[in-house]
């Protein structure tokens, strides 16, 4: 399973955590399509805690964390 964690406004109308089968997504872009999140709304995409591109590969057991533009200090 791929664990997809959603944050901030991505949680509106969705669960906080979504699990996908590896066959359902080979990269974060596939995950976004599945969740109907426009790609341009993603500001931070982490795979297992590391910044990644939407085209980077995801595999079974990976944890994906997706954030819209947010920040602070």
């Amino acid at each position: 399973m791929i664990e997809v964690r959603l944050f901030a406004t991505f949680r509106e109308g969705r669960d906080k955590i979504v699990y996908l089968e590896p066959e359902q997504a080979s990269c974060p872009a596939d995950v976004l399509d599945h969740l109907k999140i426009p790609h341009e709304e993603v500001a931070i995409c982490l795979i297992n805690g590391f910044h990644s591109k939407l085209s980077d590969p995801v595999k079974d057991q990976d944890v994906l964390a997706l954030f819209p533009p947010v920040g602070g200090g």
Partner: protein
Amino acid sequence: MKTSYNGKLARINLSTGEIKVEQLDMELATKFIGGRGLGTKMLYDEGVATVDPLSEDNKLIYITGPMTGTASPSAGRYMVVTKSPLTGMIASSNSGGVWGARLKYAGWDALIVEGKAPEWTYINVSDDKIELLSAKDYVGMMSEEADAKLKEVHPGCSVLNIGPAGEHLSLLAAIMNDKDRAAGRSGVGAVMGSKNLKAITVTATAKVVEPFDAAKLKEATKACNQKIRENGVTGGGLPTYGTAVLVNIINNTGSFPTKNWQESYYPEADDISGETLKDTYLVKNAACHRCPIACGRVIKVGDKVVGGPEYEPLWAYGGNCGLHDLNAIDEANMWCNEYGLDAISTPCTIAAAMELFDKGYIKEEECDGIPLAWGSSEAIVEWTKRMGEGKLPLAKLMADGSYRLCEHYGHPEFSMSVKKQEMPAYDARGIQGIGITYATSNRGGCHVRGYLISPEVLGLPEQLDRTTTEGKAQWCKIFQDLTAAIDSMGLCLFSSFALGAPDYAALLNAGTGTEYTAEELLTVGERIYNIERLFNKAAGMKPEDDRLPKRLTEEPISSGPSKGQISQINVTLPQYYEVRGWENAFPTKETLERLGLAE
């Protein structure tokens, strides 16, 4: 010539009661802008670096920037500049609210407070009239109550004050203004307490500051406001979630210090996140003077409606104390505001005490019925109050910060501090650049003096790899220099998520009539960073003070996404000194000459 400076300072001697009006030295103002920069330069020139910070020889400068009170976005900031009793080095604590703008409207750029009042006193500023009044009726009062009572005496005033923590000279004491805004760091509240100064009230008739070129300022402000509105962070994320939104981001990078930095990933972090705060206790967001961002939180604690926690206290009371009880954190944060305690250093000191307790150095019998156990909601709330009171022996010790506490128990290595000031909420093992900021910050452990989290985690203005060292020294210098300029102008650093050096130069030029390019503005920031360093040198700083706690260089992160990582400050620090033109932590003669700082 019109300019957004008032051109006027008041020098108030609390020992003699003498109040002198002085002209602002415009040449110095141009070289150091105002706020943090000009305040440090004045303090340095007046020989304050070598004094005992809690003696009457120390001076407290409350200073606005040239943009404070203008129509520029987030133009409500002022600085408290003094010698810190916590670090023994420069302190410049920044605060928002409306107090700074009121001081400006009353006709002053700065108040320089000297000496020590024979009895508890407060300063009342009402336009050009300044008087010293007895504060005996307000001593011992919580910050909010004193604020309300002083408003009854001076209707319509804005109040800056210290709570009980500043009165008992806690080295973690903050200066509060407008109830829940804080000039929080470096123990500036203790300096105020040492002068028997409880509060400064300000009433102003005027409501505007006339800039050098009103049309140009209007145009620059309009362009900046548009960028702020359109930027996802300043136009969406910050107003909706506040800085608290960082909890989940930083935790998911495995750089969320947990249990006094023994770990760096907290599985329950979502319970104390900005998202959860919004869904539970948030009443509304709030803005400082003239701020289109409005990142402030207004929350419910029991039946009270109060200012809510920023990211740092959520982390420091939360993961760093091994706790995910949001209600308890909200309450502890409220007590920080009421007692006037720094909401970063106070919980970080409790976390250090919890480690000392866990390892058996602090004994249960010292805890007077409330053990300092990891994850204890009761402990974070009650020990915050005890630190605010400063009566119980252990609480009194804790009220002077984690370094002195841990040293007392023979284990200074458990103090997660730099220059004796606690580091904030980002693990420099998982995020390499922020370690340079921590190590070299002139005011000790601090994140907002070169916020490399912006490029290393948030991807602004571009995404850097958080795990590498390459180029980080240069990035750190640029961020430190730009921040010094923004802080000195009287604007909020958060505006920089949307704005860059050219925007700030345009605002400053329209306000004051300077003709700075973006590059020249950065050089002014560099000058400010270097004068701070000269102050520290004169105060006795040693090269080894630019260091990170051993835990960050010797204990790899034990679990989570950044498992195995360690700070490479040994690599980045020499690179940083090179890009700064410093040798052994201090500016070379050539650097000082280049910046116009040679003596």
